[in-house]
């Protein structure tokens, strides 16, 4: 009897997930009617970080705040705003961290240069070995 009551209780229990009782925002799970605009919104949403499930994009995340961010992105795109303006608006508030697109600021230049440097480095080693073998 106790076990059944416990099982029933567990069935009825809802997890305390910090979710509000409000339904998702209008554009959270709806595509824009204009396919071109929706494609633009999708591309941007893939590159914006969810503030709750950090590591997921807002396109992937089911967090409420991610839904609200998708709503914000779609509404602004529908209003004619450029994706880069929306990205800049969010970066202004949350820092570069909120965008997955790698920064082209001087601080990231060593990172962009790294593949080239490694390639030259590897090339130099290979060239050195080949020369030694021949002689």
């Amino acid at each position, binding site marked *: 009897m106790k076990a059944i009551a416990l099982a029933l209780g567990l069935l009825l229990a809802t997890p305390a997930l910090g979710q*509000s009782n409000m339904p998702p925002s209008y554009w959270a799970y709806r595509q824009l009617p204009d396919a071109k605009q929706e494609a633009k919104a999708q591309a941007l949403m893939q590159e914006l970080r969810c503030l709750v499930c950090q590591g997921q994009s807002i396109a992937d995340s089911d967090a409420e705040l991610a839904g609200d961010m998708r709503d914000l992105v779609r509404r602004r795109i529908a209003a004619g705003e450029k994706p880069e303006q929306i990205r800049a608006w969010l970066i*202004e508030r*949350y820092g570069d961290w909120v965008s997955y697109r790698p920064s082209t600021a001087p601080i990231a230049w060593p990172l962009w240069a790294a593949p080239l440097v490694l390639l030259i480095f590897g090339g130099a080693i290979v060239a050195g070995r080949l020369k030694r073998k021949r002689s």
Partner: protein
Amino acid sequence: MSRAFRLLPIILLVWVLLAFAWRLIQPPDPTVRSQLVNREVPHFVLQPAVAGVPGLTSADFATGEPRLLNLFGSWCIPCIGEASVLEELQRKGVKIDGIAIRDTESGVSGFLKRHGNPYARIGSDPNSNVQLALGSAGVPETFIVDSSGVIRRQYVGPIGASDVPGIIAELEKLR
């Protein structure tokens, strides 16, 4: 090729392993902080969340008096714990404005009835728009706004009784 040059891969490997060890021992802080600290409160207009308490606009700051801006939700459990601290601050003369995130009128009025109302104004933000405009990522969060409407500090998570003296001292300084 010198000997030092041959050791380079090992040095690099040790360096990478040390980097891993450092982040494993000291994981990065996942707290999302607003970049708007020391910037003006962004423009917004919010309808009242409940009857009897006025709504909130960004023009309600910059009134010559520092204020607290508290983001909360009746569905947010840590906000219940914070409610008594906000009441204590209000009793000590601190002006507090609230923004109810993703909430309903009945939800907010029930919350105020159960846990008291320390707020001078409460705006309703049903789609988290103003929360995003403020650079906030959750509830509860509290901003200290100075007398000219500039955000001076952000508290992420519930403020506790131990934060009260610090908040009062900071508001005194901004007066």
